[in-house]
């Protein structure tokens, strides 16, 4: 079966006064029919930018500078290189107008974290939903209204025909997020991109919504890309997972093998740092240091400055995710040189390097020279004090 969405080597950069922020720097993944694919990472990993790039919704000063995005035979992003190596957008790319009229809303829908940003406060909830359906499905007003009420009921809004005329501020946060889910599903798109849709919600409301999405996904056969920082949500809802770190993909696997047969030290460290609701953990094992700025990422593997398994070779080589699964196992990609037989490097012979993981025991200690992250965006000694 072919994937419905293919993302290859996607690069989205932000051109700021202080330099180029490589928010997404060569990311590849697929989405197949009827699956929920997670993109997980900490803030600054580039997961939201990656999701927006698929919809070509990246705003100034950001732009997509490389890679390919193909969706059901259509080319959303593609580049050509001329003889000087200059990249230009290729001809086959959909025009902005085609994106607007054919793709967004109809084929790919997106749900954001803050529903108030997506709903207009001066129009009624029902009116906005009805208009959206009218435009995207080419139906008349009364037909659209019926569909809108049905969709509201479907996502669990009580008294949908009475609440149709309410304004967004009259809905609770969970209800608003349900409205957006109704809007996303109203045109029966093939793919829904959900960007941290439950992060701002209470845990019981989050539970209700995850449950509802799972039901609707089954009913409509929609594929989802679920962007989140919460490993619990990933475990709950995703079929396959992509783990991002500093603009790149660290690991990609089925949800079960990601949690139970983890192949990348970053994923491992992330899972170890979580307090658990289901068991008492005496001592948390945090990841040392902070994520470096994407404006000046460390050379080699981007995680090597915080990685407990880092060796000299990790400073020089930036691995792309490769399949490291054993025979008869499903594909499990990891971008880590410790799988030396796959990456054909001499990892074991390479000397372990000194980084913050080996620098004493107070892991809480965050030292100055490794780049206090300036809010003003100044460039600081990147934590790769190891830059060669």
């Amino acid at each position: 079966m072919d994937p419905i969405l293919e993302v290859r080597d996607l690069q989205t950069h932000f051109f700021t006064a202080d330099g180029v922020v490589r928010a997404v720097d060569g990311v590849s993944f697929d989405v197949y029919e009827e699956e929920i694919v997670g993109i997980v990472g900490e803030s600054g990993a580039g997961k939201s930018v990656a999701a927006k790039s698929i919809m070509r919704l990246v705003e100034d000063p950001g732009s997509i500078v490389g890679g390919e995005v193909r969706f059901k035979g259509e080319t959303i992003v593609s580049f050509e290189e001329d003889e000087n190596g200059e990249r230009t957008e290729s001809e086959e790319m959909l025009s902005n107008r085609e994106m607007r009229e054919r793709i967004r809303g109809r084929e790919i829908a997106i749900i954001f974290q803050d529903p108030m940003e997506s709903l207009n406060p001066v129009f009624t909830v029902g009116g906005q939903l009805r208009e959206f359906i009218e435009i995207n499905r080419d139906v008349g007003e009364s037909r659209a209204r019926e569909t809108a009420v049905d969709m509201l009921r479907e996502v669990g809004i009580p008294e949908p025909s009475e609440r149709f005329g309410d304004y967004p501020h009259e809905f609770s946060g969970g209800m608003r997020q349900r409205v957006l889910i109704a809007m996303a599903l109203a045109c029966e798109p093939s793919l829904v991109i959900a960007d941290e849709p439950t992060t701002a919600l209470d845990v019981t409301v989050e539970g209700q919504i995850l449950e509802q999405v799972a039901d609707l996904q089954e009913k409509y056969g929609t594929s989802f890309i679920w962007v989140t920082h919460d490993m619990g949500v990933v475990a709950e809802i995703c079929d396959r997972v992509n783990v991002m770190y500093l603009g790149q993909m660290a690991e990609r696997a089925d949800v079960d093998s990601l949690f139970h047969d983890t192949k990348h030290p970053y994923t491992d460290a992330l899972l170890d740092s979580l307090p658990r609701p289901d068991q008492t953990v005496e001592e948390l094992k945090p990841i040392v240091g902070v994520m470096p700025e994407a404006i000046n990422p460390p050379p080699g593997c981007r995680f090597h400055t915080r990685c407990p398994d880092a060796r000299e070779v990790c400073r020089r080589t930036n691995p792309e995710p490769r399949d490291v699964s054993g025979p008869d196992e499903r594909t499990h990609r990891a971008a880590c040189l410790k799988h030396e037989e796959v990456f054909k490097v001499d990892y074991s012979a390479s000397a372990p390097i000194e980084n913050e993981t080996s620098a004493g025991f107070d892991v809480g200690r965050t030292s100055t020279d490794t780049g206090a992250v300036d809010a003003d965006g100044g460039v600081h000694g990147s934590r790769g004090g190891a830059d060669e």
Partner: protein
Amino acid sequence: MSDVSGPGEGASAGPDVAEEGDPLLRVEGLTKHFANDSGFLSWLNVERDADGVPVSVGREWVRAVEDVTFDIRRGETLGLVGESGCGKSTLARTVLRLVDPTEGDVYFEGDNLAALDGEALRRKRKDMQIIFQDPQSSLDPRMKVGPIVEEPMKAHGMLDDDGREERARELLERVGLDPQHYNRYPHAFSGGQRQRINLARALSVNPDFIVCDEPTSALDASIQAQVLNTMRRLQDEFGLTYLFISHDLSVIRHISDRVAVMYLGEIVELAGKEELYENPQHPYTKALLESIPVPDPRKSETRGVLEGDVPSPIEPPSGCRFRTRCPEFIAPEQYDLTPEEWANVRAFTRRVIRHGFEMTTRADLEAEFFTEARPGGAAGEALDRAFVLLERGEWDAAADHLRESFTEPSICAREQPAYEVDPEYGDDRHFCACHLQRDAEMTH
């Protein structure tokens, strides 16, 4: 019930009377109500449909915190968990008297904070500090880190200039920052580091008690772990007592010794950490625990999803405040119903009250709600009446009728629950505000 020696013996005035050790802080019947509106003439209500004079006088009150009683022992961490709007932050601020309580007392090291005033209260504040959630807005962007840390000492007249600087540098080091950071501005720090500055500032006056209001909620998972570990270490080093507030049950489980669960202004359950997580008794606590996504795909169980939304704290439900959403709402004693019959009646009643379906025909509704089990007798007659009203399109009358027949006579709507449960894990008292425990001993 286990046969652990009953902790409920002796006089007890609340969910948590210290049976041992030395309570540092004791909160008794603490209540905080806010006026719902403020401003000139806000006490005037216009009622367009009223007979006679269409105005009435009186304010609406948001009952944010209602009759909360607990204590915190010296050196322990009490976790306070609840969803947004449950009143946990208001409770914390009322405990510290950052807002004045409507009723109730707060004893801190023997003194009643609720009765202190002016200078006496100000001096007392030296021993109680608070850390807020947002590490961005809790630090003055125009002050350097050193003076930020020194400010509380200055306010309380501690040490001289040099002494304060020395202590500030030492504290920066103790919270895991570099003493060289003394001359930097807050913007030069990441979220986790800013929270460390907040810790250093709180510690500067050598307090006994720190309220931590969602201190790690704005931080990434890996950074959160660093800060939580530091907070624990500092607790040992400085002999601190924490009231740790969070909506995150995983964090609460990690950091707390005992845990209180809050719903709509009240504490519904309070027990030792293991007891609360492994042997929860209140249906709300159970629902919360079932709702948390566990970071393990092999443990994703089906969960009991809570119905509906949290009711308004302006007119909270009578009796047990959780009863409008409770999956275990108790049947009124006057009806003799099987559990299946009662489950159907309960589901039907709630759906009618919420207008949760479109009126079709009575036969359809009977089929939807009562195929397997339909009560007869008085309960059946009450249902018949509701169907008649529904068929006439009188939704509100039907809802009122069902409320009168099935909701209001229940013990859950009539009496406020407060019970002691025998703990299965540890010896800490286990308080549970749920009438399912009504065979256990009442505490109020």
